[in-house]
């Protein structure tokens, strides 16, 4: 891994990088179906509770991440109303675990994901779907062959944004999953840790550069996908 050599990363830092990438990718992959469904519903359907769903989805975007982390702790903690049955039935413990990092990343990235999907669904001409139905296609085939391909650049842009947000996630993670090296210590948490320790300036600089590179790459990719999506919609 040439980037590792160029930056002169220590095993501790490589571990944090690997954990960050793994949790962020899993958080995005696990929320993808739900984000597509919710974004499409918000754009295309009017139903009882539309405003409420919209508000709930957007809450993690405006709440302080520490509050999100605390709420996760209350709900998904070992004695929480969701956390207790999860542990009893499936032996799944989210607090202070890598799974908890994924949950925190998924929750804070979800609003960005849904917004991008929603915008893509709104930009898609619904008469294309009407034409597809008039050609004999049922709702599922229309969604799979027309709606989803046309929304795809928006979905990818949303996934990239959510990924970037997950890579930078700090407050909810440290509150809900804590700061355990190799288990929950992602890049931002590792950076925070080395800043706190004496003589950690060099490591801090390396982690800082790494974070900037990751974020910039994700942002550039997201912009490119969004522009491509806009071009598709105009054609």
């Amino acid at each position, binding site marked *: 891994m040439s980037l590792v050599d160029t930056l002169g990363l220590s095993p501790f830092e490589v571990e944090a990088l690997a954990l960050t990438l793994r949790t962020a990718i899993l958080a995005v992959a696990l929320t993808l179906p739900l984000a597509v469904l919710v974004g499409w519903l918000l754009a295309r359907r009017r139903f009882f509770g539309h405003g409420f769903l919209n508000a709930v989805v957007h809450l993690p975007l405006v709440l302080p991440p520490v509050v999100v982390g605390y709420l996760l702790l209350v709900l998904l903690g070992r004695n929480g109303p969701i956390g207790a049955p999860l542990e009893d039935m499936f032996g799944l413990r989210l607090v202070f675990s890598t799974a908890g990092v994924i949950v925190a990343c998924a929750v804070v990235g979800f609003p960005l994901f849904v917004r991008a999907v929603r915008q893509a669904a709104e930009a898609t*001409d619904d*008469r*294309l779907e*009407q*034409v*597809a*139905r*008039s*050609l*004999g*296609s*049922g*709702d599922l085939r229309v969604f799979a*062959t*027309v709606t989803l*391909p*046309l929304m795809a650049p928006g979905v990818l842009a949303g996934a990239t944004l959510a990924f970037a947000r997950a890579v930078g996630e700090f407050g909810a993670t440290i509150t809900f999953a804590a700061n355990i090296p190799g288990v929950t210590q992602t890049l931002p948490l590792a950076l925070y840790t080395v800043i706190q320790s004496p003589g950690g300036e060099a490591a801090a600089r390396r982690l800082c550069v790494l974070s900037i590179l990751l974020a910039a790459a994700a942002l550039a990719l997201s912009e490119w996908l969004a522009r491509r999506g806009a071009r*598709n919609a105009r*054609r």
Partner: protein
Amino acid sequence: MIGGDATLELRVKKTVGAFNLDLDVAAPLGAAVGLVGHSGSGKSTLLACIAGHLRPDAGRIALAGRVLFDSERRIEVRPAQRHVGLVFQEALLFPHMSVRANLLYGARGCDARLIAHVVDVLGLSTLLQRRTGALSGGERQRIALGRALLARPQLLLLDEPLASLDAARRDAALQLLADLAESAGMSMVYVSHAPNEVARLTKQIIRLAGGRILAPAECSEHLASA
């Protein structure tokens, strides 16, 4: 296709905002029916009701005796099962598919000879491998027409399908539609705000104004003022 009850039965009440569509008419099938009126007269609303993309508040829509919608009997056939084709003013090709994929989208189980015939008549053979992005307006509209025809609808709804074509292209396309209506016994509802265009295609013309059908006496007045 043309059964004993070979009519398109339209009894439709629909309120959209301040606009009221309220009509009751039976048009004979097996040829083209013209639907003429100014913009805002309810033409597109009526087409959306026939295609099933808009639910009438009340009424009954039947195609050669096959009920597509009946508010009293609570019948509402899904758009995909209506066998009602739809061509809009803009071609609305699927932008992520090739011309061929567009044409064949609704052509499942379609006879290869029919495909070849439609491709030939519409002059599409050189376009099949192309993407839809770089086509002219006329090419796009011909593909949209072919796509609708290959789904073999019982009724084809054409909402100002030739408005984006130049005069020469429009004449050629009108001729093609007239031939299709006659040779294939293909039923169509042809919508236009230009009475002359519709008159070239059919003598059966329904005139709409303000969501209502104009009686023949009113028509001449309405056309004169148009």
